[in-house]
């Protein structure tokens, strides 16, 4: 089990990072994450959970697909 896989009653679920921005001038930034069994549900969860703004763009990415060069404290 990798660091971003979690157990749910319906089986295994993975973590997706949620990115969004309010205006075209803004950079896309991390607003949170969701844990879902597949990308379709992850999209639904992201839309329902992070609805605090009228985002002009929202995107999700599997956390495992993020390639980290270094973490805080490692630079």
């Amino acid at each position, binding site marked *: 089990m990798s660091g971003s896989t979690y*157990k749910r*009653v319906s089986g295994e679920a993975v973590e997706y990072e949620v990115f969004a921005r309010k205006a075209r001038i803004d950079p896309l930034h991390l607003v*949170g994450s969701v844990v879902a069994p597949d990308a379709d549900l992850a999209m639904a969860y992201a839309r*329902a*959970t*992070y*609805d605090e703004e009228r985002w002009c763009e929202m995107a999700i990415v599997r956390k495992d697909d993020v390639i980290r060069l270094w*973490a*805080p*404290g490692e630079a």
Partner: protein
Amino acid sequence: MPSSAEFDQMIKSGELIESTSEMTPEYLRELKHTLVVSGDTELISAPAYYLAAKRAPSINAFMTGIAIIQDELAHAHIAYHILEELGEDQENLIFSRDPKSFRYPYAFDVPLETWTELVVANGFYDQAGFCLLGDIHDKCSYGPWKRGLNKVMLEENFHLRNGRTWMKRISASGGAAKDELQRAVDWMFPLSVEWFGLPDDKKMHSTQLEYRLKGLTNDQLRQWWLSTVVPYCEQIGVKVPAHKETRDGKDVWELDYPFPCEFDAEHKRWDFEHPSTWDDVLARWRARGPRNAEMVAMFQEEFHNFRKAHHQES
């Protein structure tokens, strides 16, 4: 794992902690405890508000109530997901714990039965949440939680506005509606004052303050709450048992009743003639109030039904 001297230095420098590899076991334990209180409080507000939201006076008002409940569930999700990243089992935390072990303020155990009580809860309880979480948002040393609270603060502000707008409208309408508002305020005000916990002179030491999991003491948070709620209630013509005094050139909010004192949960009545001790209050909190088991069952039962059905299918 950092040495405890390295860790202390990091906390003192104001730097954010970003992962378990940067924590001491004591910090991790205190962080988890603080997150459980926050997650449980957000989660239980959903069934607590739902009972009253069903009594909304219009479809629009009902939609607002439901939107608030949906926000609270998302806030709970943020806290529980951080706990999950810290190694806790989220489903166990929410669905398999004993109702009495949930760590939310006692106030939510007293049923909110009318729309009026719901809007006072938005005005008082969400204000308490706003003070507590605003302080954490401002001071918290754990990066993921500090960032997660951006969304929470925006939305708590909206809940508070719903509470205040409705309280003002009900008060202005006068008559029986205003009497009902005053009755709700009479029992909900002291419950919210109690929300912030033991007074500073009873609480010897705060690990949460030491680890910068919060920045203000219980009494400082209580004063902050009083400084927003009391003037607002006075402004809209609602009586509250507290007043402002000036001491050493500073505004201090004083309660007009013995704190703590006896509370009859069944009749939603405070007995200002009968002061109690903090041991009595702690015993009442630990025993939990009227709706505890029912509210926890609302989400736990459905989960176990789902699990049963799911296991039969597969």
